[in-house]
Each structure stands twice: as C-alpha cells, then as structure tokens.
C-alpha cells in the first residue's frame, strides 16, 4: 500500500506488470509512429510549420530568436536539436533518405517560397513528429505510473491502455504542435508531485516545479499546472518539520518555474516587445476575438461544448470510468492532487471564446488516470460489497472486464485502422503521380507533356518521380491550352478558396476543364483542394486527351 492509499502490487506480479507495460508502450509508440507518416511529403495541419519551420529557420540562419511567440520556444529548440541530428544523418548517409542534402541552403521552407506549408525535405518533419510521438508515449507511461500509484497496477494498466489507444491522443502525438508535449510535461509534473508526497526528498517537488516551467514554455496556457506542485507542497506541509527547508521550498517554488521558462524561452526577455505582442495577441485571440467557426460563448456554453467533445472523443466507457474514478478519488488526498489542475484548467479555458478540442489535450492523461482508477475501484466494489454468491460476483466482475475491454477495443480498432492507413496509404497527390506514370507507360508515341496545376502544390519529390515532361502552371492556363499542348493534365475535383474575396475565382476554376480533354481518372477522397490553406488528401482528376 502506498501513502496514497493504493492497493499496492496486489494481484499482478512484477514480471507480468512490466510485461504488460512494455507491450502497452510498444503498441502506443507503434500507433503513433505509424501515424507520423500521414500525408508526407504534404502537410495537412495548419500549425505544424509554426514549430517545425521555425526550427529549420534557426538551423539555417543560426539566429536563435524564433521571431514567433504565439507558443513558447521550448519545443522549437527541441525540434532544432532533432533537425540538427537529422541534418547530420542526411549528410552522412545520403542514400538512406529520399532527397539528399548537400548543404543547409538546400532546405526550402516558407521563408524561400512564401507558402506557409513549404517543406523541401519532409523527413525533417517526420523526425520532429517522432519526437512528439515519443513524448506522447511517455505520457502513456506517466499515466500508468500515476494510476498505479493511486489505484494499483491494474489501474495503471487500464489508464495506459485507454490513453495509448485514444485516437485523439494518437493523432496529436503525431503532429508537430505543442499540445502533446505540454500534456506530457504537465503529467510529468503531476507524477513528480505524487512521488514527493511519498518521499521526503525535495528533488521531485523541484522537478515538478521545473516541469511546470517547461510546460508553460511549450504552451502558455499550461501555466495553471503550477497548482500541482503547490498543492503537493501544501499537502506535505505538516510533514516537514524544518521551517528553513519549507521556506527554501517556498522560495524555489516561486523562482524556479519562471527561471526555467526564461531559460527555454529566452527571447521573452531578449525580444520583449515581440514576445508581448504575440502573447497579448493570443490572449486577445482567445478571450475577445474568437476564431471563426470555433468561436463559442465563454462560460457554460463553452464548458458544455467541451464536455460533449470529450465524450465524443473518448467514448462512453472511458468517460463513465473516469467519472467513477473522480467520485472514488474526491475525498482522497491523491484525488485533490490529481484533479487540482484539470478543474482549474477547465474553468480557465472555458472562460475563453475558442472551443478547440486540442486545447484540452492536456486533460486526457488525467482523465485516463481517473478512468483506470475508476475501473479498478468498481471491480473492487463488486468484489467486496456485493452480497451475492461467488459465481454471481465473478459474473459481474467478468461483465465489467468485458465492458472495459470492449470500450478499449471500440477506441483502439479505428485508431489502428487510421494509423495503418497513414503509414501504408500514400497521399492522394502521390497516388495521382503513380496514376499518371501508369497512364504514360501505356501510351504510345514519344515523350509526352504533362500539365500539373500549380495550385495543387505537388511536392518536388513527387514531381521527380514523374516519367514525363512536366509543366507546372496555373490551372486556368492549363485549361486554356488543353490537349493542344498536354497529353495529361492534373487538376482538382473541387477547388476551394477560403478567402471571401476570392469566391469568384473559386467558381471560375470549378467551372473550367481543360479544352479538348475528357475526364479519365479520379484519385483521392474527393475532398476540396484549398487554394489558400493546406489540403488534406484532396480529390484529384487526371484529364486525358481523346485517343487519336
């Protein structure tokens, strides 16, 4: 039994515990690593270049000022370190990676093209995603450790399993955004705070404070995580008899998080106006301006919206187990420590006007822990309290296990399918290039010219694979020339311009087809090809001239 009142190691031998944990972690990492390949060499997520592109720019210029402060800089520098390693790998083993790199200047990003989602060497993004996936998997481990500490090993296993297969968490663990890293650091702070409650040494409490500073330096709205170490300090206050030590911990608790924040976001001081403009802009963005369709009324409407989103994202079984865990922990010190942050954070975020589900990614590890503890608590109650005969109790127990495993399967099966797709199925634009190659291979005659709409933003890697003479030009220009000039033309099944002032252009492009050609091949899911934003596996059409 731990000091938190956990059942300890009962019911699961250490070997089995570690075996299951390793399996869970391997599975979680596998799901996330497979998902990391999604879309590449194309970027589907709006925000990935904010961190990844900035890290590459730092690598290229040596200017460590990110000039971007909508997030903290910790993950930007972490990605820079990964990029440096990857750069060394690319230059040392040029044959191992697509798109060899002769020098840093070969890397092309937004700075060179003006298109926010430009990335000449997508393997940089892939490695950055691996880093985030690793952090996501670490979060699973931390959820296991916290839940084990509170509710015993089965609680840990259940919590890790829930979080490990949760599609929402898998997705956000495979894109270069700060949500999952921030969640990992907050969970780390929580785990260290729990250890501090059990051990007299102050090191874990200081680690918890430091992790909070890092979390804030990853995403500013993680600042409420500071409530975790402060709650731990409060809960362990009476234990420490030495007033000098308590005073030192108080002082360090005040000083350490800002120091860690400033060490990892140093330009918050060195370029104070830029930092304040961006941080203030985020405050205004979240609390005043809102963000298009994600805008909601602050307060209860926002809270209900987010709760509904959590239920839809995590599923009924997960939410029910988490609710049971919350009830079970409400009167325990461990519960106060575990829920101190989620409660404050939820209230804080729902006071804003933007209901982006990803902003609550930081809560899912806590919900997973609560779900693990809840499931185990229910099992224990059934075993202890129900005045039925043993077979009935066993049946009830088995039913609960079936429900939990069923819930996990319901969460995990689609996650696995999506991760497999992301790894095995290539993006529609890459498949379109394959289709064009196949069409060209079967065609008679000499070298044919292929027209590709520049608005599709086909990646250089794909263009290099084309076994034909390629001309990339605006779609309307391709339509004008038609079969007189091109044997094949690659366009979109639906164009979409998201800026209101370009609506006319959208209509014009959707009405146009290359003169003298007929529709031959359709590739992709049929989604829009955005003209101003990144497109996610857009539907494409290969126009082919009539056979002679």
């Amino acid at each position, binding site marked *: 039994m731990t000091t938190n009142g956990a059942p300890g190691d009962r019911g699961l031998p250490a070997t089995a515990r570690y075996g299951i944990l390793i399996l869970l972690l391997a599975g979680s990492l596998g799901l996330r690593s497979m998902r990391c390949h999604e879309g590449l060499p194309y970027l589907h997520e709006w925000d990935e270049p904010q961190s990844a592109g900035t890290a590459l720019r730092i690598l290229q210029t040596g200017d460590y000022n990110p000039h971007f402060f909508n997030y903290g800089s910790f993950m930007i520098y972490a990605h820079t370190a990964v990029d440096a390693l990857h750069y060394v790998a690319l230059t040392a083993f040029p044959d191992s990676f697509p798109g060899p790199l002769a020098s840093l200047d070969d890397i092309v990003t937004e700075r060179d093209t003006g298109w926010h989602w430009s990335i000449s060497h997508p393997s940089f993004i892939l490695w950055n995603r691996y880093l985030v996936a690793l952090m996501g998997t670490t979060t699973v481990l931390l959820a296991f450790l916290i839940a084990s500490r509170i509710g015993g090993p089965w609680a840990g296993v259940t919590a890790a399993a829930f979080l490990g297969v949760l599609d929402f968490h898998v997705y956000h663990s495979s894109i270069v955004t700060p949500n999952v890293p921030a969640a990992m650091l907050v969970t780390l702070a929580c785990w260290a705070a729990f250890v501090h409650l059990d051990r007299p040494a102050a090191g874990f409490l200081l680690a918890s404070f430091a992790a909070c500073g890092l979390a804030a330096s990853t995403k500013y709205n993680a600042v409420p995580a500071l409530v975790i170490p402060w709650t731990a300090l409060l809960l362990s206050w009476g234990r420490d008899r030495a007033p000098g030590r308590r005073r030192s911990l108080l002082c360090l608790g005040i000083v350490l998080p800002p120091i860690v924040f400033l060490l990892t976001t140093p330009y918050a001081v060195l370029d104070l106006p830029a930092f304040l403009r961006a941080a203030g802009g985020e405050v205004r963005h979240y609390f*005043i301006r809102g963000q298009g369709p994600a805008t909601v009324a602050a307060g209860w409407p926002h809270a209900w919206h987010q709760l509904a989103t959590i239920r839809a994202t995590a599923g009924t079984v997960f939410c029910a187990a988490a609710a049971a865990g919350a009830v079970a922990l409400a009167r325990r010190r461990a519960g106060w420590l575990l829920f101190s942050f989620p409660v404050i954070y939820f209230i804080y975020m729902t006071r804003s006007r933007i209901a982006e589900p990803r902003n609550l990614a930081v809560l899912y590890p806590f919900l997973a822990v609560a779900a693990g503890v809840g499931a185990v608590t229910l099992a224990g109650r059934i075993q202890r309290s129900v005045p039925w005969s043993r077979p009935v109790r066993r049946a009830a127990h088995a039913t609960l296990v079936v429900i939990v495993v069923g819930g996990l399967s319901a969460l995990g099966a689609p996650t696995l399918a999506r991760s497999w797709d992301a790894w095995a199925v290539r993006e529609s634009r890459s498949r379109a290039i394959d289709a064009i190659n196949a069409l060209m291979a079967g065609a008679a005659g000499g070298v044919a010219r292929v027209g590709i709409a520049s608005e599709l933003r086909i990646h250089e890697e794909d263009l290099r694979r084309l076994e034909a003479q390629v001309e990339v030009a605006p779609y309307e220009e391709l339509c004008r020339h038609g079969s007189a000039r091109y044997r094949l033309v690659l366009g979109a099944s639906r164009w979409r311009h998201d800026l209101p002032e370009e609506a006319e252009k959208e209509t014009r492009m959707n009405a146009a087809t290359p003169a003298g050609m007929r529709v031959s091949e359709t590739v992709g899911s049929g989604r829009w090809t955005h003209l101003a934003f990144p497109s996610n596996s857009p539907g494409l059409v290969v126009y082919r001239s009539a056979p002679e």
Partner: protein
Amino acid sequence: MKRRSSGKQLVLVLLLLVVVVSGAMRAARCGRGLPYLYDWDEPATASIALQMMKTGDFNPHFFHYGTVLTYASLVVDVFHYLYLMGQPEGPGPYLAGLDEITTYHDTGWYWTISHPGFYYWNRLLVAMMGTLSIALAWLLAARIAGPWAGLAAAAVLGGSRLHIEQSALVLPNIPVSFLVVCAGALCLRFLANGRKSYFILALAACGLAASAKYNAAICLLIPMLTLAVSTYRSGFRDNVALWAALPAVPALAFVAGTPHAFLDLPAFLGGAGYQVRHYFVRGHGVATVAPGASHLWSQAASIASDLGVVAGLIALVGVARMARHAMGAVLILFCTVYLGFMGSTRVEFERNLLLVYPFIAIAAGCGVVELYLRARQAGSRLGAGGRAFAGAAVILLAAAAGSGLATSAVRETEAAGARDTRTRAMEEAISVAGAEGDATAPAVPEELRVHRLDLNRPGAKPDTGPLLDLLCDDGTPGRLFVTARRFEASDPANRAAAETLDYLVTSMLGSAAASVPGGPMYLDRPSRDPGILLARRKPAAETGALQCTPAIEGGNLAQDDRYVVWESGVVKIPPGGAVSTGRMLADTGTYVVGYTARGTRGRDDRPGVTIRVIGHFPDGHREDILVADQTASQEMTTRLLRFDAGGAATLQIRIEFPDAERYSDRTFLHVRSLRVALITPPAAPDRAARR
C-alpha cells in the same frame, strides 16, 4: 502564563487590524487622481518601464534614481498588459496592441498616460511594500522591546500621512524604506541566531536599496555595525568571510538592480552626478535650504508635523530604550548618520526622510514601553491609586501617539472614491447637455488635458482643440464649453499664455452651470483637481466681436525670401535658422495670437527653438511682444499671446532655430495651426438713441 498568552493573542489581533487598516488605506489611495497624474516624478519610473516594455530596450536612459523599481514595475506592467489584452472593447480600459500604449515618449507631455491601469498596478506594488514595512517595523520593535512596542510602532508608521501618500505613488521612497527595514530585520535575526544567510540577505537588501535610490547606500552601515557587534561578541573570530562579503554582495546587488550603471556608465555617471550637484550645490527652487543645523531643524519639524509631537517626544524617550539593545543602538546610529547626511544637502524634500520613518516608529514603540515601565515604577511608590494613574497616563500618551492611524483612516475614508475635477466636470457636462436636450457636442480645450477615458464617456463626443480654435471655429450658438476657471504656469515663459487663456475665458465665456471648484490648471506641470467652468459663449453685445483669421496651415504660410521650408505643416530647419510670416493689424482691439505645434521626437533633437512675435508699429518702432523658448522634444501645445494694437501695425511671427547648423535639413517642427484673432470691444451704446 495563561494571561500572558491571551495578552499575546490580543497583540496579534490588534496588529493584524493595524496592518489590514494600513494596507487598505494605502491600496484605496492608489487610484487617487487617475487617469490624471498629480506627482511630478511618477513618469520617471512608470513611463520608463512602459517604454521598456514597448521597445525591449532595458536601458532606462535615466539615472536620477536606480532602476530596481523600474524593473519591478516592468514585471507588473507585463501582467497588466496581458490583463488589458483580455478585456473587451468598450468605454472601459482595454488594449488591442502594445503600440496603443502612449507615454511622454510619444506625445512629449511628460505626464501622458494612455492606460492609467498600468500606474494603478504599479502603485499597488508600492503599497504592498509600504504595508510590509509596517509588519517589519512591528517585528523589529517587538524583538527590541516586546510585542506592545511592536504594536505601537506599527500603529505610528501605519498612520503616518507621508508614508500613506508615498505608498500610493510610483516613487522609490517607499521601496527604499522597505528594503532598509528588511536589512534591519535580517541583521536582527543574524545577531539572534548567527545564521550567515540572514546577513548575506541583509547585504543584498542594502544593495537593492541603493539601487532604488542612491542616498540609501548609507544603510550599509546597518550590516557593517551589526557585523562589528557580532565580531566583538565572538571574540574577533569566525567572521572573515562576512567582512569580505560586506562590500561585495551589496555591489553585486546594486549592479543586478541597476545593470546599466555598468553597461551605460557615462549616462549613469551623468544622472548620479546631476543628483549630487542638485542636492549639494544647486538646490531645488522653493525646497532649497541652507545645509547644516537649519536643515536638521527643518527635518525635525517636518517629522514632528507628520507623526505628531507626542509620537516624536515618545520616540525620543524610546531612543534610550533602543540604545540598550545592540540592534537598537545600530539602528539609532544609522538614523543619526542618515539624518546628518541629508542635513548637509541643500534640498529639503520631506519624502527623503521616509527611510528613517520606520525606525522613528520603532523608537516610538519602545518609548511607549519605556514610559509604561517607568510609570509603573513610579506608581508603585505611590500605591494602587498612583499605579492606576500612571498606567492611565501612559495609555493616554500611547493613544495620542497612535492616533495618527485613526485620523488617517478617517481622512482616507472621506477621500475614498474622490475623483479628479475633470472627471466630475465631464460627467456634469454630459448631464447638463442631456437635461437640456442639447445635441451639440461640448467643446473641451486641449489646454485642460482631459483624458481620453473621460472624453470617450458614453454620451460625450466632445470637440477638442486649442481654446482659441474652439472659440474661432464655433458656429453653434449655446454650445457648452468645459474649461478651467483659472490657468497658471510655473515657468515664467508660459505665464503670458496662461494669462491669455484666462482673458479668453473671462471675456468670451459665461458660466452655464454650477462649476466644479478647484485649483489652477497649470500649462506646464501636472494639475491637481483644477477648478472647472461649464460655460457658454456670452452674447456678442457683451463681449464684442471675435474676428479670426482662418487657421493658417503650415503649407500656406508666407515666407521670408530666403527660406523655403514649409512642407504641409512640417517645418524643416532652414539654412539660415529662421522662418517668419507677417500680418497687418489694421483694426483696433485686443489681438490674440495662437499657435499649436509639436516638436519631433528623438533624443538628440533638443536645441532650443524660439518663437518670436514681433510688432512693427506705424510710428516705426519694433517690439518683441513674445519671445518663447521651447525644447523640440517637448510638446508644444497652444501658445497664446494677447496684446492691444491697431492702426496698421504689422505682426511678425518668427520661428528661429538657434542651433540650426547642427540640425539642418531635418524635419523639426509640426505646426498644426497658427492664427490671429481680434477681439474688438463691444460697441458703445448710442447716446442719442438712449436719450
């Protein structure tokens, strides 16, 4: 035993009450005057912190004080900025971007504050330090002479008028006082338990105090004497490292608090040297005194008038009690040296004495206990009645000493919620306009410097501009004017302008509603609660006619032959260094010449520019009617001149740039308007018609 414990609890409860009341008084006072500033010096800290936040340049470029408070204010400003960014747009305070914050760096008017919330939060920081000083004074006095002495000390300091006033201003006096008391309390702990960390922290507090205000460097005496006592007690052993730390730690703390003393040494020396010369040689206007005994006497009178004569006398008694305690003796010595040092200067500012106020309060606390013990001793010889009488006498004395707290509480409660007369006048103007169904916007002269928050009140969309322009361009009969009852200027060069404004107000405007009483409205310094007049134009029969030339834009100003310098209102420094225009003054009457101009920003654009209005009279003589020297970096608001003339005189307005060679061919001055108005006397009544 039980009685002693309950007495201690009573003291703690009373102390808590004193600290809470003192803190509340200080916090309540922080909003005083806002959005208007009353104190000359606040922008020297608060606006510099805002400028740092806007530019990222952490060099204050101002070293008349150290920069600890500036950086502390900067940290507070960052949080307030984020708070304002989260506020919705509306009549209340909010921010949509960093660049919306304006200070004197943007306008040239030293007391500009676009978002007074920044000052309010900065003042709260100082108020917090002031309140903590009270708690520390209690701690020190309680250690020296017992808990009742601590309580009395806290009450005396908590009720000090000067301490309350200065705790609600962004000035370094209270932070310095707080840091010095901190150093004292830490040294006391060091003497009590010998822990070196307390001593090091005390040294750091002294360094930071000097970094808040240079003259606080004397407080290094406290740890030095404490260490001497400690060394003596330990038989001259064990303290070698601490003696080495004595100069090193304060120096490091000073540089940490004022890093640009090192990074921008010439500017630092310029600022610090200026202060030395200011205090010891030049003096400061009406605050100049002869150094020495007269200054010391003046200081004593100032302290007695603030803390009360009774508290002062009790403090003198308490000195004897303090002297018996090692730390008490150290503090007495420090106060003596500090008062002696300040007495050797030529500038007498009451606020400079705040550094010793906590220690005087501690002495008063010790004095109360000493008197009580003496009285009990004396009373014991006189029997029970004598004891009771002696006890009652001491309690009465203690109550008199601590009565400042109650007096201040009453004063501050009465003043709580008081708003500047300009704020009240704008509310009054809106209600008057509303009651009369007046759809015309009220006219508010720029010279009144009404804040944007008051101008943007719901229901008020006033026209603002120089008073002369508002009068000249006013085509709406019966329009409400919100103006000052009396204009004043500190600088003799601006007095003509103030008198002219007064002339315009009295000759052209008549009271329309109950005016808001108050003091003068200064043109060149912050004004506290100026008297405001809600007025309307007098009928022409009473005032005579007001003929105004159209506002002369810079671009169409006539030039001397040699100078081609006007470009759409912006004056570039001409090769010869002057530009002028002439106007014929054919009619007889009172002429008012007004211009509104603004110098360009920039630290090096500081040569004087002279505005000269010259009259050329028909008899051939020439007279300089107005010669006003301006500094280009200052805002040049309306300059006004009134003179009686007529009969084909010519008025020449000439702008001269004495240092033109250095600044040639640079945009220098933006002239917004320049006009001449003639007020002719009302027509004499027709005698024949009257008959």
